[in-house]
């Protein structure tokens, strides 16, 4: 007791305490950090052994472009840190695996090996590599829980400059495009916002909160399911198709009517 009290005053004591504290902190961190990451992946994707299955799938179907360890090649970017949400979006919408390189990967029917389980396994593997945005829960993307009016305002402020006012899609530069949103599931819409696939910017949770994202999903899903009260929707792209209809249907019908009316000639008397 006395010895410790005396040692407390020793000139080197402060350094010893500092070393001890640093050692403890470092020690705890090395023990804790991998555990928490593994826990993250397991929470995000269900089961921890999904990672091993996912790695196998990855090596078979993805590694030729993204590299054996998802480090990326000249044909495809690295997938470290893109997160489970990106995998779910790209694979479930059929964009990945890519059929052929081009300006942009189009939405297409999914590959034969793709199903809910394989997507979960693949997502778990990618998530285990470096974290990233995780797949949203069903509640987060439920259109019934969102506010359409607020979502509409956010949608108009953030999305329509590329995706058009009803999400009919639009052109971007050099062959890139903003795809139509008609086929995207609520989950895919959410994932696209948090991962920013292809030409799309990322709308993270500090820019648009998860609740606001759900409002936007409610608006997008609501509008695309809404019937057209005025008749045929004409693709809902605005005046271009209206002009085509005015000329091809309107003027053509009226020209035919004019020809019909004047075809009946008055019999001359002579």
């Amino acid at each position, binding site marked *: 007791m006395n010895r410790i009290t005396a040692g407390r005053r020793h000139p080197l004591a402060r350094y010893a305490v500092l070393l001890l504290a640093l050692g403890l902190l470092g020690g705890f961190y090395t023990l804790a950090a991998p555990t928490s990451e593994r826990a993250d992946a397991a929470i995000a994707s269900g089961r921890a052994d999904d990672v091993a299955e996912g790695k196998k799938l990855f090596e078979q179907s993805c590694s030729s472009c993204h590299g054996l360890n998802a480090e990326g090649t000249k044909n495809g970017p690295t997938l470290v840190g893109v997160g489970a949400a990106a995998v779910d979006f790209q694979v479930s919408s059929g964009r990945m695996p890519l059929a052929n390189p081009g*300006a942009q990967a189009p939405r297409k029917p999914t590959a034969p090996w793709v199903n809910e389980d394989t997507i979960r396994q693949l997502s778990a593997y990618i998530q285990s590599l470096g974290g990233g945005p995780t797949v949203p829960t069903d509640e987060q993307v439920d259109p019934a829980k969102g506010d*359409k*009016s607020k979502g*509409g*305002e956010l949608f*108009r*402020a953030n999305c*329509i*400059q*590329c*995706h*058009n*006012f*009803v999400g*009919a*899609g*639009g*052109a*971007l*530069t*050099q*062959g890139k*495009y*903003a795809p139509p949103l008609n086929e995207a599931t609520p989950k895919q819409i959410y994932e696209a916002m948090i991962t920013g696939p292809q030409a799309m910017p990322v709308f993270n949770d500090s820019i648009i909160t998860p609740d606001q994202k759900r409002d936007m999903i409610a*608006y997008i899903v*609501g*509008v695309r399911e*809404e019937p*057209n*009260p*005025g*008749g*045929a*929707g*004409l693709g*809902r*792209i*605005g*005046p*271009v198709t*209206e*002009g085509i*209809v*005015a*000329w091809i*249907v*309107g*003027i053509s*019908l*009226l*020209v035919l*009517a*004019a*020809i019909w*009316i*004047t*075809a009946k*000639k*008055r019999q001359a008397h002579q």
Partner: protein
Amino acid sequence: MSTGTVPKPIAGASGFLDDRLGAGNFLKRNLRKVFPDHWSFLLGEIALYSFIILLLTGTFLTFFFKPSMAHVVYDGSYEPLRDVTMSEAYASSLHISFDVRGGLLMRQMHHWAALLFVAGMMVHALRVFFTGAYRKPRELNWLIGVLLLTLALAEGLTGYSLPDDLLSGAGLRITEGVAISLPLVGTWITFFLFGGEYPGEDVISRFYSLHILLIPGILLALISAHMVLMWVQKHTQMPGKGRTNENVVGAPFYPAFMAKAGAYFMFTFGVIALLGTFAQINPIWLFGPYTPADISAGSQPDFYMGFLEGALRLMPSWEINFLGFTLPMSVLIPALVPMGIIMTGLALYPFLEQWVTGDRSEHHVADRPRNNPHRTSIGISAITFYGVLWLLGANDEISSVFHVSLNWTTYIGRGLIFLGPLVAYIVTYRICLGLQRSDAAVIGHGVESGVIKRLPHGEYIEVHVPAEASIEAHMRGKTAVPMIAGTDTDKDGIPPKGMRGPLGRLRAKMSKAYGGEKIPLDDGHGHGDEHDEHAQVGPGGDDRSLTH
């Protein structure tokens, strides 16, 4: 007609009116007015009847529309916009669409009628142009027509800005951009129009006055003048049997033409009602309310403004900075130059043609387009110029539907805008000459009869018979395009008076190229009863026109 058969109340009343107004004579004279018959002569009526429908549906819309930019919170029946702050104009447009009985149908018919109004004017103007029906004495009526078209564009622009939806706001923003880019007066004009900084509080109510009062008033007056002039000058007729510059061959206004015109009004009304019922137009509820910060992909104006949109999209980003002032050529040129070329070109063409051909005579028989090949080619190349701009106004939709690069549509458009009209001119000119040759062959050799004859030496020929009298008369209505007489230099090499100097020489040169007979109808092909003989030598002969 004896008055004995007319019941007394009618005879008495009409007699009273007749004595005071002279109505009987007026009607007798005008109801028998003869109108020539050709389907293309009805095209202008599309615009006329659309205008009537516009007035009717438009009046209905004014009962419910509130031209105010005051902010309100929407609480109508369209759920996705409930509790959204918007202008009163937009809220009342939504109200018309969803809560007024028949409101959406009226809105849609109004909009479709507007598209057909302008489209009808365009096809009518093209008919008048290609048949030369603008020639003396109808130049003034042509000018009224050009004015009507210009006013219709202004009427359309002010009209589609009124609902104050996001799409119309984009158009308004471009209008502001054009106004503010004008040198010297730009800022003043913009502040005057919008009553302050864009978008201000005034523009909707100002556009409303223009749209429902001033412009339709002028349109109505000009349309009346257009019709009265047409009535007084009589309608042109296509060339044919017994048709000359001194007569009009056709049916009297009452009953024949009146029935036809009435039927055509019903057709126009029917087509507009059909479109208004089955094809959704301008779904403002999908666009959302206008805020200057928002813009949608695929924002386009209505079709008649498409050429201006295209010009804007094609233009490289040039600007001139001089003494601290900026001249944005990238806005000024596309806003003013194509419109200037097309409208000024239309207005001046009759006078330019007169200057070139030196033709001061009256024309009441229309030209067939092939018979004035340079005019037709100029028309088609103007259509090509307009068409390329129009198409490029939708280049984002083209790019997104056909999966081509947006950038390339712009690059190709920049080339096409110069190359397209040139190619169109050459191709059209050759087609016109080809059609003239075909006419000459029909006159010279008759038409194929379908009868194959075997000659004694074994050769097979198809017998040609003379064309039907009415067809031949139609073709023989061709007259050579006039040209200035005596443009040639005299024996000392001195050109005649008025043909000297660079302008005079140019005029003489143009007159020679524009005027004259390119392919004479009776170009040594023989005529009359020589058909059989020609048919016999035809297949082996050196006559190229037989192989048209």
